[in-house]
């Protein structure tokens, strides 16, 4: 079982397909869950404390806005942990404020720099593309060193 980073990190489809084919999807929920379940200072809504931008310094320079560094404190460790990545390049649902947009760019840059196997594809818009989409993900996941069950 390989750890596969998914982008968009909140994607239902990628999360399901990666888990379905026997691997562990690394998405935003894991980072958020870790913070939600850790005792400390109350910092609603996501338990992102002032410590996070400091942790984010490992992934982004000090002049990068704290919003990006704070987000990278969630995604950075997941990217480090990842052994592969599946990226949907035309995900119009992965939009947000400038902090989210810049973090997304940094996530994609970090993934491409990391040297791990990456599959890039687009969301299907018809049944034929759906067949290609699922087959491409299955083929990619099977080609990973840690195999997969399906």
């Amino acid at each position: 079982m390989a750890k596969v980073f998914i982008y968009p990190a909140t994607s239902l489809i990628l999360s399901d397909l990666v888990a379905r084919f026997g691997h562990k999807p690394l998405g935003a929920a894991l980072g958020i869950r870790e913070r939600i379940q850790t005792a400390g200072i109350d910092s609603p809504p996501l338990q992102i404390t002032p410590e996070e931008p400091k942790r984010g310094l490992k992934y982004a320079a000090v002049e990068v806005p704290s919003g990006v560094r704070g987000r990278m404190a969630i995604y950075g460790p997941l990217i480090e942990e990842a052994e592969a990545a599946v990226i949907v390049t035309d995900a119009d649902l992965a939009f947000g404020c400038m902090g989210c947009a810049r973090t997304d760019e940094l996530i994609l840059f970090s993934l491409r720099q990391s040297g791990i196997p990456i599959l890039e594809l687009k969301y299907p818009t018809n049944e034929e593309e759906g067949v290609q989409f699922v087959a491409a993900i299955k083929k990619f996941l099977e080609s990973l060193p840690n195999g997969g069950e399906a």
Partner: protein
Amino acid sequence: MAEYTPGYVGTVTKYVFVESPSMTPGELALRAYEVSEGVLIKETCFGLQVTGEPEAVDRLIAEIRTFDPTHIFVKDRGFPPGDPRRCRANLGGARPGYLGHEREFRILRYITRGLEALERGEEVPEAAPAPGKKPGLDIQRLQELIDEES
């Protein structure tokens, strides 16, 4: 600053989405309750949220997937069900993250088609070649155009 004491520590929460012509979320919930064995199940408009010890949730998810393998989709969730920071009962309007799910929900039928094709061992259709990039205006031609106009 208030102290934060987390709830549901050590548990995982997962979303179960059902997009099926033969099973409603209500039916899915009833069948899931039958095999839940202590896992907390919350019925939603799109399926379920299940919360419990990781092993128990994994076992339940594996069971739920067998009900309708190509129409049931699962993903992780960071927050436990009914969390006041996320639950729309407290916030009003759509829950944060719901719109992303709604966007992906629309293309689940293509993924279902892809999974069914895999199951039946159908041949994957060749991807249409990407439209080639139009060559830019040749610099000499540009110069000619400028000369003609002047």
